Every structure is written in C-alpha cells, then in structure tokens.
C-alpha cells in the first residue's frame, strides 16, 4: 500500500492553477517535495489533508479514499506547518493535554522526552517562543502520537543548522519503521538530498519530475560546453542551460548525450534550478 496517492489533482484559483498533479509516496519512504515560492507545494499538501476543496482528482491517504475516511486516518498522521497553529497564550503542557484528548495514541512520555530533547520549557507561553521554538513544539507534537505518516510543510525553515541536523536525524529514525513514511516540503534542498528516497519537483502548479533521488542524481548531469557543442546535442538531451559569454553550462540527460562528453555530478538544487529555469 502507498502512503499517499494523488491522482489528477486540480484546483483553480484566480491567479494560480494546480494542474493535474500526480504524486505517489510508497510506504516506508521519504519524499522531498520541492518547488519555488508559490509553486503549489502548500496547496497540494492542503488538498491532501482536505483543508481545501479540489476541482478534480482523487486522493488516497493511508488507504482512505473519501473525506470521511480521511478524518479517521488523520489519527495516524503527524503534520507540521510553517506556523505553530496553537493560540499564543497556551504553553507546551496545555498543548499536550489538548492533544491527548484529540489523538487516541497520544503518548505523554514520548512528548515529555521530546520537550526535553528540544529544550522546550513546558510552562512557557507560546507567545514568548522564538520562531524556531514554535517549530520545535510542532515537531514534538507531530512525533508524540505514534504516527505512521509525517507531512512536513517547511518544517525545517527557521531552525538553526545544529537543530536542523538533529531534527533530520529524528526523521531518519522515524523512517526506520517499515510502515512509516514522510512527505517533506522544503526550500532547503540540501536537507532533502540528505534524507529523501524520492524527490518531486513542482513548478507553477505542475509536477515537473517525480523520481527516486538516486535515479535523478544519476540521470541528470552538468556539462560545460561551447554553444556549438550544445546545439549538436539531440533534442531532449538538454534539460536546462545557462548561456554565458565564453560558453554554456547545461543540465543534460546522461542517456541522451555521447559517451565521450565530460559530465559532472549535479546536486539536487542544481537540477531543480535548471529544470525550473527552462520551464
């Protein structure tokens, strides 16, 4: 069973169109969901969680295909958004008590452990937290009810590099369970490169690519060539290019270029930038 299956998801806004998005997250995997600001990442995640009505398409979330069923399976889903969500005059202790009433598998012991690990004062009011601390609290609550699926929308933004590293380790531990999965959207592509099994790029409401990370990194390479050499390549070989005064940098499909071409490995970030530039 796949953790998430999105098929032909469509949503029309006055100035934005989510265009037949297809996305599949296999069980036991981490998928990085990448795109520029306004690409449609949050809209897609909101649609998956039934926060918005969609015009077309189907969503299967942990086997639940209707909105009514999806309310029930949310008991097995931990979600982190880029804002805290809890009213500012509450504290972490009160948040824990509220969550205990909402989630059937809420675990006070695990929650307390995460509060200690993340150095969160349980009696301090949320309004006195920094942005990073609010994010830590959200992550702690998402991990404290034995969820099977984590959906993280810009969960690591606003975190210092040391803590971000710690959180990524926590996510990596979470995924060691066979039936655990993570969908993580982020601008920090280097984080995703470190932990993800699958990567999906979205640009202006359309999915550009959705593949296994290792395949992506293997398939797309960087070349530095002259304009003439670039023009000689077959159609479809060049995914994106940057033309300079003295030559071109291009992202190419390694299976469509001559074998003698010297290529360099590209990072996920570079692949994303070249792909989205061309679109």
């Amino acid at each position, binding site marked *: 069973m796949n953790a998430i299956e999105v098929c032909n998801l469509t949503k029309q806004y006055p100035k934005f169109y989510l265009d037949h998005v297809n996305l599949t997250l296999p069980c036991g995997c981490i998928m990085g969901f990448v795109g520029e600001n306004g690409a449609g990442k949050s809209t897609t995640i*909101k649609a998956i*969680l*039934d*926060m*918005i*009505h969609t015009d077309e398409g189907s969503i299967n979330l942990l086997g639940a295909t209707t909105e009514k069923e999806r*309310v*029930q*399976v*949310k*008991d097995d*889903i931990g*979600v982190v*958004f880029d*804002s*805290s*969500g*809890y*009213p*500012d*005059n*509450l504290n972490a202790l*009160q948040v824990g*008590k*509220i*969550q*205990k*009433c*909402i*989630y*059937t598998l809420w675990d006070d012991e695990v929650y307390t452990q995460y509060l200690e690990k993340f150095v969160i004062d349980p009696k301090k009011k949320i309004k006195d937290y920094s942005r990073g601390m609010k994010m830590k609290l959200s992550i702690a609550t998402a991990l404290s009810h034995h969820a099977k699926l984590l*959906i993280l929308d810009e969960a690591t933004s606003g975190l210092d590099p040391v803590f971000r590293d710690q959180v990524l380790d926590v996510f990596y531990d979470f995924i060691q369970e066979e039936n655990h999965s993570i969908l993580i959207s982020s601008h920090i592509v280097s984080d995703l490169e470190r932990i993800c099994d699958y990567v999906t790029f979205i640009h202006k409401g359309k999915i550009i690519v959705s593949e296994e990370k290792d395949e992506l990194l293997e398939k797309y390479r960087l070349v530095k060539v002259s304009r003439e050499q670039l023009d000689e390549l077959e159609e479809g070989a060049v995914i994106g290019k940057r033309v300079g005064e003295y030559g071109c940098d291009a992202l190419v499909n390694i299976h469509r270029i001559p074998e003698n071409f010297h290529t360099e490995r590209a990072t996920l970030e570079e692949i994303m930038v070249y792909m989205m530039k061309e679109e």
Partner: protein
Amino acid sequence: MKGLILKDLYIMRDQMKIVLIILLVYFILPFISEEYMTFPALAVIICGIMPVATMSFDRQSSWDAYAAAMPIQKSSMVWSKYILGILLLAAAAIPNVLIEIPLSTKYHVNLSENIQIICIAAMVAVIYQSIMMFLSFLLNDPEKARILFFILTFGGAALVGLISKQPWFRLNQDMHFWLLIFGITAVLLFVVSGFASAKIYEKRDR
C-alpha cells in the same frame, strides 16, 4: 470535541479572571444594596458570549488550518463553540440561581421573579450566542462580531435590568406564556444557528 473545548477553556483563562472579578462584585454587592439584579444578568450574558472571543484567538494563530490536519470532524469545530457557550452559561446561571435563595429571604423579594430574570438573561445570552456565532462563521471575521458583542452585551444587560423594574413585570399568566415563547425561540434559534454555521464551515477552505 473534548480537546477543542479544553483548548478554548485554556484560552479564556485570562479573560475569565475579569469575569470572576465581576462575579465577586456580584457576591459582595447584595450585602450592600438591594438593587443588585443587574449584575447576575450581566454575568450570565458575558459568560454566554465568551465563545465568540475564542474565535479571534483561533484566527490569529491559524488554528483552523492546524486543526484541519487532526482527526476532528468539521462539524465538531463548530459545535464545540456552541457547547462551550452552553457550559459557560450554566456555570454562571446556576450559582446565581442558588444564591437567590438566601438573598430573596434577606431582602424579602419574590424568589421566583428573580429566578425568572436570570432565566431571561440566559435566554438573551443564548440568542446573542446564536446570532453572533452564526455571523462569525458566515463573515469568517470574529473581530466584526466582537464589536457587536460590546454593543449588545451592555445593551442587553441594560434591557434586562430595565425590564425587571417595569411595573408590568410581575408574575401573571401572560408573562409565563411569553417567557415560554421566549425560551422556545431561544432554543430553536440556537439549534438552527448551529446547523447553519456547520453547513457554512463545511463548505469553507481552511
């Protein structure tokens, strides 16, 4: 729903301190003055309308969006506010009714008349709740409802106090009849408001 009500009670903790001060004044005032009936009416109305104030906090923190990711039915998000309103109303009205028993003896006033005033105040609060909750969900802007809250709260309390002083306001057959009509109207309005608000909320993107 229990979690939603608990969240709102935590939010209102600071606001409840003001209400408790008002209630404390009410408990002291009867021992000083016979003219005390406006205060229980005010306390009941304020308690009854407080759930609307929690919606402002929810809006500020984008709670609705966060709660959408939880195993909570959309209808529960609406009905928890209405149930909270009834619970607060009961928490204000019941002690007021109980304290009327010794006070009516002390001041030789008609106990049932004073209890009727508290019931009227409760019904007024239910009507206010019904209208303002509905408007808050319809407009998706509890701040506009808050302006109404201040106008109608003091207006409503003054109205109840005024009614209680009128010479025609005495127990008779007609008053009982009109009280019954008023009570049924309040209950019906409450139920219709709740269902209408739930329908509106169901259709809204969060």
